[in-house]
């Protein structure tokens, strides 16, 4: 059990090894699919103990409060350690990753017919990279995983993507890389500063929190981190790679990209930028909130104008992540918690929306909204799923999106200085309702007069299976978010206490009207 994080992280490699040595030939594709799916499913199941054993005292590190901590020397000369450990934030993201990984792999069953072996290898490798990012407590190790995951994603977009896949793949790779190398410089500055102060060579993320860094150095490091993370999120104005990557990527690639990859950026801000560089965060807060607000409104407006469904969902991501970032950067307990919950929500609902678009694309090979209309008549199950996920994305009460958005707005409003930014957030919700409902109306309602669309089959069993966990989660978070929020209180309070000490009451089960449970 002490090694559970290592096992969860590297388990997909087992699948890769099996697939690589599996007999060659087209006739074995079927068995390769089974292997990949089973490995991903088992990967999800073995990550479940993270939540069930989370509060088991045995696995709590008494000093840091991290769970399942595992440390070993890796490169002692420079102080890099193989150091894994999670708190509530990373635990939820890890579960999201293992779940979405399985769903994405399952959704590619019929979509991928070429070079099947490679495809599943890349997907499983990607899984390793993403899980490692959320588990690493050593900055060096974090960076390794952060970069490693670029390569499989590059191939997934570049080989199995749409017509402009090469352009999109290379843009994705280089754009993200440019951010990450600057991030590396920031990490190095932090690392050497820590050495100057303490005389210890260490990349330990948690010990860096207690450094007292002069504000101007903090500012430089923050900018370096910001470029790295903001490109990944992506925040306006670094979002331009996202629509290209999303549109060209195969469905499963888009799902993972939206559900997990983008969360690496937001996670980076929460885990590193805020607690390690609190003063720079406070100094730059107006700008950060400004960019988040622009992202919300700009993303929403651009989404409304799209003719391509996938592009629409991609821009809606920009808007929703602007929302997450608004919650994170305002650094009030409720908003931060809402922002983190909204990351999970966005993973669920946008992941599902990409699957929904993928279902249609697989049947008709077009994503243009104008090619569709009146589909609800012959695809009732599909229409229901689509509707629920649309509502979840808009933020209808009783579904997950509402909780996240409400908490963010409540939290932003609770901060007297930044109260007005809630207006931008609220505008974003209205825009969200506009483009999503309009999309739903144009695709699902009206008359189905295109003969090609009249015979489209409804969801099959496999497709339903991919949606069921997402539907359950959407309602679960919508109706009883406390199951998930309870894991966030502790890390969120800790971060807020570092950045804005003494300004706010810590968030508890009673802090927000919807987080309320036992009354």
């Amino acid at each position, binding site marked *: 059990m002490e090694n559970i994080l290592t096992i969860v992280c590297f388990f997909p490699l087992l699948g890769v090894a099996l697939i690589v040595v599996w007999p060659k030939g087209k006739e074995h594709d079927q068995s390769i699919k089974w292997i990949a799916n089973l490995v991903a499913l088992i990967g999800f199941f073995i990550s479940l103990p993270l939540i069930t054993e989370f509060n088991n005292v045995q696995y709590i590190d008494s000093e840091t409060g991290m769970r399942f901590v595992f440390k070993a020397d890796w*490169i002692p*000369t420079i102080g890099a350690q193989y150091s894994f450990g999670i708190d509530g934030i990373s635990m939820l993201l890890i579960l999201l990753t293992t779940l979405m990984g399985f769903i994405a792999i399952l959704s590619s069953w019929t979509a991928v017919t070429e070079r099947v072996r490679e495809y599943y290898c890349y997907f499983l490798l990607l899984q390793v990279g993403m899980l490692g990012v959320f588990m690493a407590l050593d900055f060096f190790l974090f960076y390794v995983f952060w*970069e*490693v995951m670029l390569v499989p994603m590059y191939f997934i977009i*570049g080989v199995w993507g749409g017509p402009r896949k090469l352009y999109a793949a290379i843009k994705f790779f*280089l754009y993200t890389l440019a951010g990450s190398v600057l991030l590396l410089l920031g990490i190095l500055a932090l690392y050497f500063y820590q050495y100057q102060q303490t005389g210890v060579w260490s990349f330990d993320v948690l010990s860096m929190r207690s450094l007292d860094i002069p504000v101007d150095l903090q500012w430089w490091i923050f900018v370096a981190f910001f470029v790295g993370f903001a490109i990944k999120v992506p925040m306006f104005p670094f979002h331009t790679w996202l629509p290209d990557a999303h549109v060209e990527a195969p469905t499963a690639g888009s799902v993972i990209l939206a559900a997990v990859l983008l969360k690496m950026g937001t996670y980076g801000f929460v885990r590193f930028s805020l607690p390690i560089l609190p003063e720079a965060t406070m100094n730059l807060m107006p700008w950060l909130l400004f960019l988040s607000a622009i992202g919300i409104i700009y993303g929403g407006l651009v989404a409304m104008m799209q003719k391509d469904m996938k592009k629409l969902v991609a821009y809606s991501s920009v808007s929703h992540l602007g929302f997450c970032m608004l919650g994170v950067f305002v650094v009030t307990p409720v908003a931060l918690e809402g922002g983190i919950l909204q990351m999970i929500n966005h993973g669920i609902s946008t992941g599902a929306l990409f699957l929904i678009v993928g279902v249609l694309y697989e049947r008709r090979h077009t994503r243009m909204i104008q090619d569709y209309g009146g589909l609800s008549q012959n695809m009732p199950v599909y229409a229901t799923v689509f509707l629920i996920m649309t509502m979840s994305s808009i933020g209808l009460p009783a579904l997950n999106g509402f909780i996240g958005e409400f908490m963010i707005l409540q939290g932003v409003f609770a901060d007297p200085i930044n109260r007005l930014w809630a207006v931008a957030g609220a505008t974003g919700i209205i825009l969200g309702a506009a483009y999503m409902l309009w999309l739903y109306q144009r695709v699902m309602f009206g008359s189905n007069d295109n003969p090609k669309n009249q015979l489209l089959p409804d969801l099959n069993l496999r497709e339903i299976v991919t949606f069921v966990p997402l539907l359950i989660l959407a309602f679960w978070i919508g109706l009883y978010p406390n199951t998930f929020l309870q894991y966030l209180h502790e890390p969120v309070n800790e971060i807020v206490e570092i950045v804005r000490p003494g300004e706010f009451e810590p968030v508890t089960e009673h802090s927000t009207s919807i987080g309320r449970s036992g009354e």
Partner: protein
Amino acid sequence: MDFLAGQDVLTYLKDNVVIIRPQLVLILWGLVILCVMPLLHRGRTIYAFMYAVIGLLVAGFDVWWGSQSGIAFNGMVVFDSFTRYFQLLFVVGCLISALLSYHYLEIENEHRGEYYALLLFSTAGMMFLAGAIELITILVGLELMAIPTYILVGFLRGKRRSNEGAMKYFLLGAFSTGMILYGMSLMYGIAGTTKLTEIGTALTVQALSPLLVLSVFLIIIGFCFKVAAAPFHMWVPDAYEGAPTAVTAFMSVGVKAAAFAIFFRICFVALGDVREIYVPILTLIAILTMTWGNLAAVTQTNLKRLFAYSSISHAGYVLMGLVAGSEYGIVAAAVYLFIYTFMNLGVWAVLILMRRGDIQGEDIESFKGMMACKPLLAILMLLFLLSLGGIPPLGGFIAKYFVFAAVIKEALTSSGSQAIYLVVLAIVGALNAVVALYYYLRIVVIMFFEDDFVPSKLAFSVGVFIVLCVSGLLTLLTGIYPQPFIELARTAAVPLL
């Protein structure tokens, strides 16, 4: 005979020769090959090859397990951990080049024994450079390294570009040696000695004079020619493209690393106190080298030229270590050169595989669809390319990490404009990694995203197979578990401090 200092000639020789024993082995071996070759039938070149390999192994064993250390010949050469580190690197580099050469030269139909003799002489020259602590020895080492290389570049006598490359390389090489020599003679005039440590002491009390600046500049610029730093890199693309591919591999790792080794020793031991003269200009040169090399590589379609430019940009990264100075800088450069040797040799090995029958295999198009036909080779090539691009968990990342670390560390401890220069250098280096990845990915695209590979047997041979295995393994190992290599580089840095 006062240099004997009271010893008799035999003891003197015994004590001193041991320091240069590995070099002597190579020279002796080379001479034997030269003498015996005319007696051998043309088809028996394999003996020369085997003999050269044995010589390299003997020299390698001597470097690694030999217990010699210390200064010899009245302060002309030294065998310390720095020497040892680099000599080992050169022997391995030369061994790998020899392994790559055998089958390749058969295909080019230029397989002759002298080739190996020249390879050995040149390697001996590099090893002298690694141990040289005196200006004259440095010069002799440089020439011993360079002259055989000129001939090797032009070894494909029948090919125009090979001759062209050799000519350009020779002219510019001779020119740069002249500059270094001129700088050295001025330095001798200023310091009154040719020994590096004594120059270092003399310069501590020396006021800045135009003569000193001129001397330092001449030496620095001469070495910038040798390590192929922009804007003194013009000979590189032509020489690298024209040379037999195996020689290109040899030059891009061995010759370059040797020039860097002595460049570092001179800068740290002799010119340590006049850093402010040359560090600004070296910063500029490093920035230019990285950027120029990368931008020029972007448009290349001939892979030999592409990797020639890529090797220029990598020289820029090593220069970052020199600019940073300090122990970290030396370790960074040593680690970089070590890792670079293997990932780069891997790439050249793949290129040599592609040279088969009538196919040159140098064009980027000839890698089309490699993944579909030769998946293992394609994945190996991917590994090398990503490593060159600095993607973890491969060796190239560790190499890049160290040069960036050296520069950032220096930037944090310095102040004012110097800190800003260093930060700019680090940022330019970081962004250059992105540009570099762009053209490495271009090759990946061709290999993985397109099919219609020209189905023809590749030029596989045992030698190439060994090289691919070794370099692939080391590229991975230096990335996943770099600890022992870093420790090795750290011990190597000690004598320069």
